């Protein structure tokens, strides 16, 4: 529930429609620097046999270059029954393995060794939740209509379920951090809408829904909180060894809708 977002809209409405306009401008801020850190994003997805790990490094704020990729890492995935696979570099910073089937209930461990450091994370594959359908939810905001996308799915009762979404608008990835939890809808047909800019009538929206673990949900929830101006903090990574990033063992389903 994007309460804080809606509160923000109300505040801006007040400021713009009210007395005076608020102004924004770009300024210079003198910031400290930090030694570059390893950033690992690892994915093991139910229903797929190809799994991917991205490894990059962090930069100082004032460095206006692309994030450096890490190409010399040794990356392996093992499950709790001992079946393992190694991932090889397929493009700068991207490691993939093929032919590795994954199933519900298994625990997968990702190990990354690079420059003398070892980073390890584990995750357990949860029960699959399919995407029943994709609907839309509209409401009027002055003369405009805001279209939101509703991914309908039946939540599993008495289990904490967390979801992450990738949205594509006319095949272009929509920028945003889309996560939901079943805190208020446990056991129900979940129909919480997703709000994003630029969704208009006639657009084809592809929804990819991932069932994720609580640690990964908390990771993205912290990133979301940071955007909203609360005292920002680094999200807790499920990796040991001191790197940034996360390892997500997730289920997946897809759906599509054309906005009426």
């Amino acid at each position: 529930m994007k309460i804080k977002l809606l509160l923000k809209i109300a505040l801006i409405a007040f400021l713009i429609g009210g007395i005076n306009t608020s102004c924004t401008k770009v300024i210079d801020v003198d910031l400290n620097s930090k030694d570059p850190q390893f950033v690992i994003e690892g994915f093991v997805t139910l229903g797929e046999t190809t799994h991917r790990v991205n490894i990059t490094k962090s930069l100082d704020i004032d460095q206006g270059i692309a994030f450096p990729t890490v190409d010399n890492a040794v990356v392996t995935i093992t499950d709790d029954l001992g079946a393992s696979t190694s991932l090889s570099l397929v493009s700068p910073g991207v490691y993939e393995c093929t032919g590795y089937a994954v199933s519900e209930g298994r625990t997968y461990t990702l190990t990354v060794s690079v420059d003398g450091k070892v980073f390890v994370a584990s995750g357990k594959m949860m029960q699959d939740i399919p995407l029943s359908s994709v609907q839309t939810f509209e409401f009027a905001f002055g003369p405009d209509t805001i279209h939101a996308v509703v991914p309908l799915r039946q939540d599993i009762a008495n289990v904490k379920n967390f979801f992450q979404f990738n949205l594509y608008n006319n095949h272009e990835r929509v920028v945003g951090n889309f996560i939901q939890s079943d805190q208020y809808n446990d056991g129900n047909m979940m129909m919480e809408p997703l709000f994003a800019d630029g969704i208009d009538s006639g657009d084809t929206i592809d929804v990819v829904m991932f069932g994720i673990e609580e640690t990964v949900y908390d990771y993205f929830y912290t990133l979301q909180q940071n955007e909203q101006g609360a005292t920002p903090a680094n999200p807790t990574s499920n990796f040991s060894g001191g790197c940034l990033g996360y390892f997500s063992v997730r289920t997946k389903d897809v759906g599509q809708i054309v906005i009426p």
Partner: protein
Amino acid sequence: MKNYIIFTLLFICFGAFSQEKYTISGTIADSTKGEELINAKITVKGLGQGTFSNEYGFYSLTLPKGTYTLIYSSTGYDPKEVAIELNQNLVINQRISSLADKVHQMAEVKVTAKKEDQNITDPIMGVERLNPAAVAKIPVLLGEKDIIKSMQLLPGVKSAGEGNAGFYVRGGAADQNLILLDEAPVYNAAHLLGFFSTFNSDAIKDAVLYKGNQPANFGGRLSSVLDIKMNEGNNKRYNVSGGIGVISSRLNVEGPIVKDKASFLISGRRTYVDMFLRASDKFKDNTLYFYDLNAKVNYRINQKNRVFLSGYFGRDKLGLGDAFGIDWGNATGTARWNHIINDKLFSNTSVIFSSYDYKISISSSDVSFDIKSSIKDINLKQEFQYFINTRNKMRFGINAINHNIIPGQIDANEASGINPITLTPNKSLEAAAFVTNDFTLTENFTLSYGLRLSTFSLLGNGQNTYSYDTDGDVSDTTVYKNNSFVKTYPILEPRVSMSYVYSKTASFKAAYARNAQYIHLVSNTTTSSPTDLWIPSSMNTKPEICDQVSIGWFKNFKENAYEMNIETYYKSMQNQIDYRNGANLQANELIEGELLYGIGRAYGLEFILKKKTGKFTGWVGYTLSRSERKIEGINNNQWYASKQDRTHDLSVVGIYDITPKLSVSALFIYYTGNAVTFPSGKYTIDGQTQFLYTERNGYRMPAYHRMDIGVTWYRKNTEKFESSWNFSLYNVYGRENAYSITFRQNADNPAVTEAVQTSLFRWVPSITYNFKFK
């Protein structure tokens, strides 16, 4: 022989004490309005002794038999002298005339050098008394006279920033201030996300701010007590007054119900910002308003008994069409009974109800749900004031508050797919007993000392109560019987304050106080939000405790025309609260698992120089301070600057009465920016740039400064009607003061990160028309 000596000694002693003493008591009030005067001075001419009236205008003075001249006076009033022959107890109810009633009819302003040296002699330190008449002339945002915004112009009191109604006192958090309106606590003192405060200045009689060294009759918050008393209502004639402004208007109706015996007051204020929104096509279906309503009635049954009934209702509403709405507000109600037991003993009994609640509603086509939360208090207070003799004035009493907090309740219809839940309400009982004495040791040395014993008990509610481990996970779940005592915290709070007047115009003061706070506001946003939640102390969250020590030097010049106060303080705080990374504070049953605990400290130097008389009045206030926290689990367990840390804070206020009909004022403020957490690096997650943070609050926002000016034109002043115009300009040189600084990718080159500053108000002019039918 021995018996004779003893008998003689006893006779001498008895003889010495047998000098007869009598008491003069009564009330002191305004002659035109009948309003009792708070803190008015009754001095004995030539003797240098005297007393002050209490918050109900009652005074009591005990002197040896003899002939005296008493002087009754108060700031802004013509002093009155009364000759008395004291050979029995006397009751004198005095009326004095306000100077304001005379001034506007005169061609010149009479310069009265008031002998106001209370800042030197008062043993209570760290106190600011704000006169609503003075507040009226200070320019503020949108011409709204605002007692809280004006208080922030004094040293030691810092505003939480533009767009924030909260304030910080001596490095304490915004929830550590107890705001009392006619003894009822007001939980949310802000309208519209912080742009205005909830106090309608028209109805306010007196406001006192204690910055941590409050006497033992106050308790429950660490940093300050803002004690606001409303007018009772003119008990001689009807008055209708009000003001029409750009953003809001107000109306005040008061008058006698039974002349000189009973009166009422109704005061209201409403904004109409939503009218401006209607002008815009995009926002015309939106709602945005707030209102305040104060109502009071009082009845003097007889010379010794008086009853009061007062209430306050305020609400804010924000809405986006029909789809989304949020409203919140306070409601308070107080019933009081003053009883004068005898010439020396005054009693006040109060029953107080206070509540704050908010509701968020979302509805569209078939889906609808509401989220509600509230805190409701019922408070019983019994207080006695015992004017023992000229040297001792004692106060003692008891107080019990029942807090009932509903942390979250969700009501949803079937179609929404959301489960309706009610988070378990938590109930607690906060009780206290106190005794305090103002003791005049010698003419130059006065001491105020007291002890408060407070206790807090968390009561069972028949549902799950959780305990947590250090990782914030639930370690234990227990069910306690409804209304059983789950956990009780007793805390002893000693308070002592002294003043040593070493010359006619100067004094030194020192004070120590311990304060306990049992309920805490959970909020991790930079701006105060109406959805912030109050939680009680529990098995996991301990009461906050603060020990504050302060010393000061007070000096007046030119017959009290100038007042200079310099104070320094040190505060040590225990059981301070902060939040885990990514804490989920909304409607979370396990909210205590998101909290982290530690200690805090704050220290500073406050300086103020005031000019109180003459055509030109004003002050310069400056505070140099530091406020830090050390919380287990944050910033590697190192000390870090708290959000409200502000190194320099300067205010300069000037008011010039050009003629009795025209007055101009200006103010200039400068302060160091808040401590903030900025990134020290960046990385990519899922194709988006994220920021890397190192030290908590290791950076500063840019310094804030602005100048405001105002002009008040007292246009008409006749027997029946008064009117004035007020013009003000907020932020005269249009400085873009930073409200927030965020980081984002440059639109043209995503690899480049830029810092974006948002500022709120540049030039804001306003006009208000004020009127009064007398």
